[in-house]
């Protein structure tokens, strides 16, 4: 395996890690204004992700940094090309991030309401945009000579990418709901489990729609990188099993299978892409590939060594934090952090 492929794999891993972890953060944020009936419940909902969201977000920062270091042309084309979309995402992430810290600092209902809605919009906007972005990677965007994106923001918006956005939106929301049902004290958790069931239906619906659209209405299967084989079926099957586990109230298993669904879905995208990283809708000679967008071998070798040392360490200590905060969040005012 060459270094370019290793880094393609590593960036895929970082994004999948990001989608799994920040997936439930976004889901919790989207659900926050709707599932909690009192300020105590709202605080409980936030506290389920309180210790984790910041660390989870670093998966994105690292994925971005890894892209910059390993595939500068991918980083440059993507970030300048998707300029408006990324600007919106940045504003969303900024407001969401400070909202977690600021919302409880003033005992005023309007103040808290404002920040709760900042958390909502700060979660729903990126949740949609990631789906839009990734579907556009495989569908193709107008990339011309010298890797320069020559389209506009509106070239990213089409029926296919909107359905892609709905897949991530509903998927992350279900991920968030299942997470909440694992992390909250019992009566509240049961309520959310019922909600997760209701959210699961639109999720499986848009996922199937997305698969059908991919097969029949795009030419993606005519220009596959690697044939994903049964991987997309794995995604659909995992999500079906998720529905079953939600129904029988096996939250832990539902969460595990939903992570599998995310892994299979994202892997499908990355398999279809490989060895390309962005597809040009103008001409395939303008495609960005792991070869024409990569850094030199020396850089990739150094970065591989560093990644092999530190990624396992990071995974280990982050896993430890989930173990430390494994207890369900209760409404006991003494244990609630504001």
């Amino acid at each position, binding site marked *: 395996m060459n270094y370019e492929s290793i880094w393609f794999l590593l960036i895929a891993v970082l994004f999948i890690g990001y989608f799994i972890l920040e997936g439930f953060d976004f889901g919790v944020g989207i659900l926050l204004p709707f599932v909690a009936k009192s300020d*105590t419940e709202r605080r409980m909902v936030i506290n389920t992700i309180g210790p984790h969201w*910041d660390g989870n977000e670093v998966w994105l920062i690292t994925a971005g940094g890894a892209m910059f270091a390993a595939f500068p042309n991918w*980083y*440059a084309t993507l970030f300048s090309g998707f300029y408006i979309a990324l600007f919106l995402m940045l504003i969303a*992430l*900024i407001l969401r991030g*400070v909202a977690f810290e600021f919302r409880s600092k003033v005992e005023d209902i*309007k103040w808290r309401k404002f920040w709760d809605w900042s958390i909502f919009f700060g979660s729903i906007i990126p949740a949609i945009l990631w789906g839009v972005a990734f579907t556009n990677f495989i569908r193709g965007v107008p990339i011309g000579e010298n890797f320069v994106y020559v389209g506009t923001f509106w070239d990213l918006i089409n029926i296919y990418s909107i359905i892609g956005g709905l897949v991530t939106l509903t998927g992350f929301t279900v991920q968030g709901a299942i997470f909440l049902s694992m992390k909250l004290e019992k009566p509240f958790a049961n309520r959310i489990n019922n909600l997760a069931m209701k959210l699961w239906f639109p999720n499986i619906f848009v996922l199937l729609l997305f698969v059908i659209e991919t097969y029949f209405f795009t030419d993606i299967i005519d220009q596959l990188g690697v044939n994903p084989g049964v991987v997309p079926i794995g995604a659909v099957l995992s999500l079906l099993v998720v529905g079953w586990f939600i129904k029988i109230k096996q939250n832990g298993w539902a969460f595990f299978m939903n992570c599998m669904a995310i892994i299979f879905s994202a892997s499908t995208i990355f398999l279809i892409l490989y060895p390309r990283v962005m597809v040009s809708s103008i001409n395939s000679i303008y495609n960005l590939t792991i070869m024409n967008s990569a*850094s030199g071998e020396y850089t990739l070798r150094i970065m591989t060594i560093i990644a092999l040392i530190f990624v396992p360490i*990071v995974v280990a200590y982050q896993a430890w934090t989930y173990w430390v905060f494994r207890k369900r969040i209760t409404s006991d005012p003494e244990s609630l952090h504001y």
Partner: protein
Amino acid sequence: MNEIVITLSRWQFALTTVYHFFFVPLTIGLALIVAIMQTIYFRTGDLMYKQMTRYWGKLFLINFAMGVVTGIVMEFQFGMNWSEYSRFVGDIFGAPLAIEALVAFFLESTFIGVWVFGWDKLSKKIHLISIWLVAIGSTLSAFWILVANSFMQSPMGFVLENGRMVMNDFGALVGNPNVWVQFPHTVLGGYTTGALFILGVSAYFLFRKERVDFFQKSFQIASIFGLISVFLVILVGHSQGQHMVKTQPMKMAAAEALWETENPASFSIISIVDQENQKDVFSLRLPAVLSLLSYNRFEGEVRGIKDIQAEYEKIYGPGNYIPPISINYWAFRAMVGSGFLMFFLTSLGLYLVMKKNVLNFKLLKFFPFAIGLPYLANSSGWILTEVGRQPWVVFGYLRTSDAISPNVTVSMLWLSVIGFTVVYGALMVVDVYLLTKYAKKITVDEPKRTEDEKTYWE
């Protein structure tokens, strides 16, 4: 058209970066000081130190959140607005950014959550370790970012291949002498910021005779810690200036408004320049002092702007290689001036502590204003570093005007510049409001829920 794109891209970068760096130094400084306070609590069991950890920790967290969210913009905007730059240097510049995220930012962001939520879930020891990991993470983070920045100041460890800078020596990238003056200078500047912040807030309450014990202890810690830090900042800054004379003489010449090469070189006390006609409108200079600063002796040639310009034209071809002189000149003076003022104030603070005379000191009420000094020094220091490198973005290799994204239009830029300005402006107001509010909440009680449910949904 293109000119406007360049100008707006520059403004946006300046705005988002200077703004981000309002929060970073306080994070770096307070993380360490809070960790020290908690360590004393851990060692002695003295509850006052626990309260100190809680109180300063609360203010630390409000500031921390702002640093985190404005930092995401930094990671993205090289690609967004400077795509040609990203392609040209990504191979070598991307590496330290990726390492920063992986090695430092993960550590800091994960353990901040552990620290905040772990007060009663972890053993005292593990909880103490978590704040130390935050402090170490934030300092390490600064290190890798400064490795990246040093590369822009004085590129090392690369070869040019197919029109791109390609890394060929990681050791040279990290061992860049620029890193080893810039990193201590910046981090010590962060420690100074933390110290002056605590000093100012404590003075406010000591002047009002509130919670005297608590704030006297804080004042004491801050003045010791601050004096050491600011002393070292000045010392390292001196070496950094000498390094600058060697590697980026134009920056020093501009910072000193030195038109002609001089030996011994004079230090400007005040200069008002007419950059277009390359002359002084007014200038008052101390003979030989610039040579002293540059070489630690009263002689030695310091090259002037005109000579360096002529030399650069020979090396790099025709063009204007003179950065905006007035900005450099005043930024340099603002930084050095506030540095020495802080040195004086922390010395005075420590003197008062040793004389046990803090409470009776008449001018104590002016101390809180000193909180502005480190911010002035940090920002003007970076303005000097970055503006002084112009017209280069990578010194000697890539001009800023060649680094922009070719596909980003004026209207896209207006949208993002205005968007960032509005959101950042509003958040600054909120941040200062919350810092003030929680600085005044000396009873350290936690905010509680509001149960006024009807109004929530109105």
